């Protein structure tokens, strides 16, 4: 009989379970992985280099396109880096709006994750349910910024505009009419805050639905329990952050430990796993969605009671109001300079990090006194997670590779940048 040797298998870059453009070179011994070598960079767009040739504000839109399922969190890290260098603070209402939208983003991201992760592991129906709720979050983005995904809503010094008083409604169409139309517009009668509150009140039931589908599901447990186990020591050494670190039992959350925006003023818990396997990370992320709902409710309440400015009153950075430009020459000049040249940021270097849904998203920025950043380095959580791929899948079966890719929650926009 011929001797069976190790063989090499190519996985991706065009593969539905590769979550984008991951190419894996797998060294196999039968069906067991002996070595995995991820090839990344197929989506490399040199965002950091592009940012070096643009005024600071023009790169905010690029941040959306990094981790393109958790857009506003990326923006948050970027504008916070600029704010730190300029030494300005966003008004308190803007801080609450940012907190609320960071959590909406977290829910969006986790819905995307649970949908695709489930789909990869054979839970078809979940994908459809998760995307139904994700659509609501897209509508919130759209109401506030006009874009469903790439919002460019955060600005240094605050947010672009205040929350709208009216929530856009669905129009009658061939497919949505009569009672259907009434149903889809049920939450949209009032303001955006009313819509968000209705969503937040309803969402815990939806999480319970997802859990019914998965939590005690025999197939789900067989595919995730004991797969991709990471000890806390390993997780720290590999530079894991976010749910990947918390799934291994390390209670570390930047929202609590190095608090920013209004996270010190809201009440929430940080879920932590025990075994560090895919199932625990699933539990952590599911609980994070419930906690996000809690935060959103508190923010909605605060935002209702406390109207105020949403952007700093600082013409160096923030364009003046259109009305003042009509009869104030200085405002007109300032507006012109801001949109042609931008603003100069004092020389210095700063590292600002936020707890993005996937982990610590950091921006390291060097400024040389000019109107463009001298160097921007974006620290993507997925990059560190994926670099541990080989160690996590070694000795596992081929099908477990898919489970590990899913549990890492990788998105190539941020890994390849």
């Amino acid at each position, binding site marked *: 009989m011929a001797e069976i040797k190790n063989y090499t298998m190519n996985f991706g870059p065009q593969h539905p379970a590769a979550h984008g453009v991951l190419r894996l070179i797998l060294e196999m011994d039968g069906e067991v992985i002996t070595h995995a070598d991820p090839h990344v960079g197929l989506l490399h767009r040199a965002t950091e280099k592009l940012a070096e040739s643009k005024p600071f504000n*023009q790169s905010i839109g690029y941040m959306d396109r990094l981790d393109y399922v958790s857009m506003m969190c990326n923006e948050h890290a970027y504008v916070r880096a600029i704010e730190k260098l300029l030494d300005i603070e966003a008004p308190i209402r803007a801080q609450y709006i940012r907190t609320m939208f960071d959590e909406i983003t977290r829910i969006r991201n986790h819905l995307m994750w649970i949908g695709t992760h489930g789909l990869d592991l054979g839970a078809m129906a979940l994908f459809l349910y998760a995307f139904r709720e994700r659509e609501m979050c897209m509508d919130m983005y759209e109401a506030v910024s006009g874009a469903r995904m790439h919002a460019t809503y955060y600005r240094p010094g605050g947010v672009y505009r205040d929350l709208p008083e009216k929530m856009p409604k669905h129009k009658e169409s061939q497919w949505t009419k009569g009672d259907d139309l009434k149903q889809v517009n049920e939450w949209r009668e009032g303001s955006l805050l009313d819509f968000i509150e209705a969503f937040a009140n309803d969402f815990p039931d939806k999480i319970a639905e997802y859990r019914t589908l998965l939590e005690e599901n025999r197939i789900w447990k067989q595919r995730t329990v004991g797969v991709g186990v990471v000890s806390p020591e390993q997780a720290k050494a590999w*530079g894991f952050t976010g749910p990947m670190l918390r799934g291994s039992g390390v209670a570390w959350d930047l929202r609590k430990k190095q608090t920013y925006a209004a996270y010190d003023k809201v009440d929430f818990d940080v879920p932590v796993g025990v075994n560090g396997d895919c199932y625990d990370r699933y539990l952590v992320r599911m609980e994070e969605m419930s906690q996000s709902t809690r935060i959103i409710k508190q923010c909605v309440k605060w935002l209702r009671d406390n109207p105020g400015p949403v952007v700093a009153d600082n013409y160096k950075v923030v364009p003046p109001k259109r009305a003042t430009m009509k009869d104030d020459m200085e405002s007109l000049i300032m507006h012109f300079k801001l949109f042609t*040249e931008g603003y100069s940021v004092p020389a210095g270097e*700063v590292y600002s990090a936020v707890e993005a849904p996937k982990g610590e998203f950091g921006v390291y920025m060097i400024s040389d006194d000019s*109107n463009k950043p001298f*160097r921007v380095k974006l620290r993507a959580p997925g990059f560190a997670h994926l670099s541990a791929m080989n160690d996590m899948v070694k000795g596992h079966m081929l099908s477990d590779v898919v489970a590990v890719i899913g549990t890492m929650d990788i998105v190539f926009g941020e890994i390849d940048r």
Partner: protein
Amino acid sequence: MSNYKRQLSKDLAAHFGDVDLTIKETRQGIVCTVPVESWLEVAKALRDERDFDFDQCIDVCGVDYLSYGEAEWPTEDVTYTGFSRGIRGKGPGRFSWSERRKEAVANRFAVVVQLLSLNKNHRLTLKCFAPDEGMLVVPSLIDIWPGVNWFEREAFDLYGIIFQGHPDLRRILTDYGFIGHPFRKDFPLIGNVEVKYDEDKQRVVYQPVSIEPRVLVPKTIRRDSRYVDNTADQENS
């Protein structure tokens, strides 16, 4: 979280008395510049000593300091030249491959590391300038924090910094067979080659880029009263 910086920079200075450290403490954080000879020794101590306890290396990145602080638009004085002076420069993104700068600058490349201590909740930025003697060589931190593997590969790929002791220093983000280090300041923003499908040859071919450099906003440095607080100087005089 907020008041640890003074103490940490004191501890750093005391602990590494025999190393030529430059410690810069600002409101934004502590940046500690380490000579390349002591890079590994300092990193190891920062991880193992109980005073520091930096158990996570969050990020490693390269920096190219060529053209630092060079503006394209004079602002000190009025000028008699027209608006087009803003688009004639050869600053970042405004030159092509044949127009790139070729001068040698001392201390041009740096490696910057972000450290995080989970127990103490401290952050620290470590910086090390790569000596440029034909080849940029910096010792690899991979034996101290295994997680730096890909980050160092990225810095090698984008800046050409060689990490001595790294087991697998391949390119990571650029194309297979890519030439050059694209994030260097003398690498054009438009790149060097482009890819297209050749109908005659029936395969993908590389050819020189067909686009022109086009950056619309000049790089400007302003140190006038809008940005610099002169009140402190006036009080002193």
